[in-house]
């Protein structure tokens, strides 16, 4: 009796540790009921483990003649490249045709052209510009002041992956961090410290991503629960920026005033308060 192709494929996937926990559990049951499969697995493990254990092997290198026999496939993929080039060429041609600008301001054919433009939908109709410039440009104010805080020198490894992304300027994974389910594995930190950092950086990420309500909830947690004054002040700063982005100057002002004498943002706080007053 021999193994089926599917069985052997599963065995290979198992040996490569290329199975989910569920697949592994199913494979375990299969092994318990199939002696041939078990025997094949043991044989393969044994061969592999012996190669692992051997300090050096004396497997003969293939000779030149043998190398010819081990003929690696000559991938004739030229037609794929040609097809890709053709598609690319056609696409460029198509877009160059469709994107030709229409001289809208030609007086002679103004009406006809305007109608054409409308029919083809090639030109977006710009809404009439209204003078809506606010007294305070909140977007600019936010952009001028928002700098994501640096990551700390020492942090729990549970946050390592997200903090790396954060440091690289990608805030998505930190923004999605499931704080309730951070595993309490090694790292020697207590739960409070981990939560504090998690809420803080998640909050900053969410402010940056524009998910302001979630951001405020996370930063509020830090403001209320942080163990150090500096962390509380930092949370206030980013909370204030979040409220500024929401154009809520009242709450922003209260928060900024609460930062008080904390030196880190002293100048910026003073400037913003003056501006929103």
């Amino acid at each position, binding site marked *: 009796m021999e193994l089926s192709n599917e069985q052997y494929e599963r065995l*290979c996937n198992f040996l490569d540790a290329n199975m989910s926990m569920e697949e*592994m559990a199913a494979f375990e049951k299969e092994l318990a009921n199939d002696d041939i499969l078990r025997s094949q697995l043991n044989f393969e493990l044994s061969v592999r483990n012996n190669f692992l254990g051997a300090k050096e092997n004396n497997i003969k290198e*293939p000779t030149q003649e043998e190398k010819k026999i081990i003929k690696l496939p000559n991938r004739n993929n030229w037609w794929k490249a040609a097809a890709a080039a053709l598609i690319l060429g056609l696409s460029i041609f198509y877009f160059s045709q469709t994107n030709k600008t229409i001289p809208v301001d030609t007086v002679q054919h103004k009406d006809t052209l305007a109608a054409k433009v409308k029919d083809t939908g090639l030109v977006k109709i710009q809404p009439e510009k209204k003078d809506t410039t606010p007294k305070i440009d909140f977007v600019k104010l936010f952009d001028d002041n928002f700098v994501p805080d640096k990551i700390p020198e020492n942090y729990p490894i549970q946050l390592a992956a997200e903090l790396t992304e954060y440091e690289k300027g990608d805030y998505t994974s930190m923004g999605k961090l499931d704080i309730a389910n951070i595993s309490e594995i090694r790292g020697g930190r207590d739960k409070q410290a981990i939560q504090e950092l998690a809420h803080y950086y998640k909050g900053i990420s969410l402010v940056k991503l524009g998910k302001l309500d979630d951001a405020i909830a996370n930063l509020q947690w830090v403001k209320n629960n942080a163990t150090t004054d500096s962390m509380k002040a930092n949370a206030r700063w980013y909370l204030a920026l979040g409220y500024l982005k929401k154009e809520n100057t009242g709450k922003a002002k209260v928060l900024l005033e609460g930062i008080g004498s904390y030196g880190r943002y002293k100048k910026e706080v003073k400037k913003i308060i003056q501006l929103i007053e």
Partner: protein
Amino acid sequence: MCTKDCEHILKSTPSEVVEGFKNASSFFVKKIIGCIYACYQKVFVGWACVAYNKYGIDKINFISNTAFTDGLLKFTEDAKANKLYNSNAKLKTVLHSYFNMTLLGLLQTENRLTDKVNKYKKDTVIENIFLENEALFYSEQKYKAIETALNKMEPLDKQIIVWRQIDEKTLDEIATVLDISKEAASNRIYRCMLRLKNLIEKPNTD
């Protein structure tokens, strides 16, 4: 938590890890180790419990956790010293080799301590070397038998086994190299392994 980023890291090459360790960024080292713990500890322990279940689940569960930590330390040391085993493979494969190698060492010591008499008996019976308690461990005698059999095989068959069992290439990788489907690669490898087994069990036949 095993994030996508961590999964991505485990698919990177060992040389990238070596570069990272060379620069000695404590952040990088922590990040890698954190990812390995988050993504791989449970998988490896689960894997070991299935692969070596003949030695008892409780024992394997305990030993494989130790092997994971010890293997990771050894991996870190080797990466720092640029001496990674099987450094052409993917990081995940290399790590698996380290954990497995450490586990085998621990398991073998444990096994031999508790069963010295059996060990002596089993090492002397060549026909059963792949069936007995010591079957999954390295022994010079077994290794010689595999090596001799392998050197008798057809060049391509031998190469396939080298790819699969020494370089630890996955099915997909071998299928790509041979430019055949995954199913065909699986079939081909299986045939090669059966031939190898046959040559080990009956060394005098060609």
